[in-house]
């Protein structure tokens, strides 16, 4: 089974659902290269979002991949190059 490509629209939706949205930030603007820290998302918010991302994109993300991806562009790249989740993991 091929994994589905995750888009920036998917990512912003997931972030909103998992961790809310900072009042001073326009998530619908060009945020691809904005640091997550500047978007108001700390490591816990990204950890919370990562399990949603894994389910949607059908990939398994390492903790390092999440912590090293400091912008949406880097995170999308990591997700879309990620290791497809095994059948048992995606069924969980």
């Amino acid at each position, binding site marked *: 089974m091929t994994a589905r490509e995750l888009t920036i629209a998917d990512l912003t939706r997931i972030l909103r659902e998992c*961790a809310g*949205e900072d009042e001073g930030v326009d998530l619908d603007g060009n945020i691809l290269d904005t640091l997550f820290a500047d978007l108001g998302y700390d490591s816990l918010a990204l950890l*919370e979002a990562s399990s949603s991302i894994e389910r949607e994109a059908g990939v398994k993300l390492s903790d390092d991949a999440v912590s090293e991806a400091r912008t949406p562009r880097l995170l999308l790249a990591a997700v879309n190059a990620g290791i497809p989740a095994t059948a048992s993991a995606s069924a*969980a």
Partner: protein
Amino acid sequence: MSESVAVTGIGVIAPNGLGTDEFWTATQKGISGIDRISRYDPSAYPTRLAGEVKDFEGGEHLANRLLPQTDRMTQMALVASDWALADAGLDPATLPEFGMGVVTASASGGFEFAQKELQKLWSKGPGYVSAYQSFAWFYAVNTGQISIRHGMRGPSGVLVTDQAGGLDALGHARRHIRKGTGVVLSDGMDASLSPWGLVSQLTTGRLSPTADPERAYAPFDTSADGYLPGEGGAILVLERESGARERGARIYGTITGYGATFDPRPGSGREPGLRRAIETALADAQVAPADIDVVFADASGVRELDRIEAAALSAVFGPRAVPVTAPKTMTGRLYSGAASLDAATALLAMRDGVVPPTLRVTDQAADCAIDLVRGAAREMPVHHALVVARGHGGFNAALVLRAPDAG
């Protein structure tokens, strides 16, 4: 010489009123917030009444970012702390961050949040459990979130002694101020009216099964068959009295006495610890029993516990020698929020010279020989008030508050 500790701000969230003014207006009139539980269908449970805060939505008061990571009780605590600081006229951003602390009481933690995550865990698997469960449910979360929100990095903590917690938190906050912290936000807020939260409370066997809101939870009455739970509480701003006076702050009152004791082991035959807690608080405040104008009772609603409380009050003050009230009959017992709300109410009673009533007591038990303020509020000057609280498991606490103009 110990530093005197003043209360300069109050933030209230209660089943019969959102905000101090709404709550106090309702409380003086004897308006109850107790009703059938509406958040879920309570028909399968033996207790179906509670004091719910029906008109509170966290999203109306707090930033969107906070909502996915906070339980209802934390949202209430954050809003009440905002209100308390505004009431005190304090802007924490202008104060030294290590000169401000937070001490709250917690009885159950974020039960509603935790129930939701546990349901995900068993129905979908561990990958579906929120990362925020790591802190959103636990006892110290209100202290942590208030501290982060206002940049208060001084001495902080959490007290877990069930209903006694609201007074234990104030006692502990007072210690921090006496040791040099200028401002401490303190007191308790609980919201555990989810099915899991309520089932946990049922294990004590002390909740009333009565279905009629006009009859359930009647402390000191011959018909008393337990209490009703509620949600909410109060957050208070505590300051060094000298500092508060210097900045010209309005002072509701000062905390002059605090005492805490633990009950002897069940079956020991020794006297329960409540009387000693009261005597300790009076001695700490350097006042005689005759100086106390009103007592805010713990008012368990469990016959045996009512009898113990009335006996302790009679032993200290003499039979029917001091007015006693239990406005928590309008809110239910709020766990860590209960004594917090009572302390806030006592300060308002001092300010306005009005002691709010105890509801539902129509046939006061003969073994509860206290001067219960029943039916309607009593107008009278209040210079010194005693607040009494007991927590499940043997905790007793008592607090003496003094009006700013008391001689």
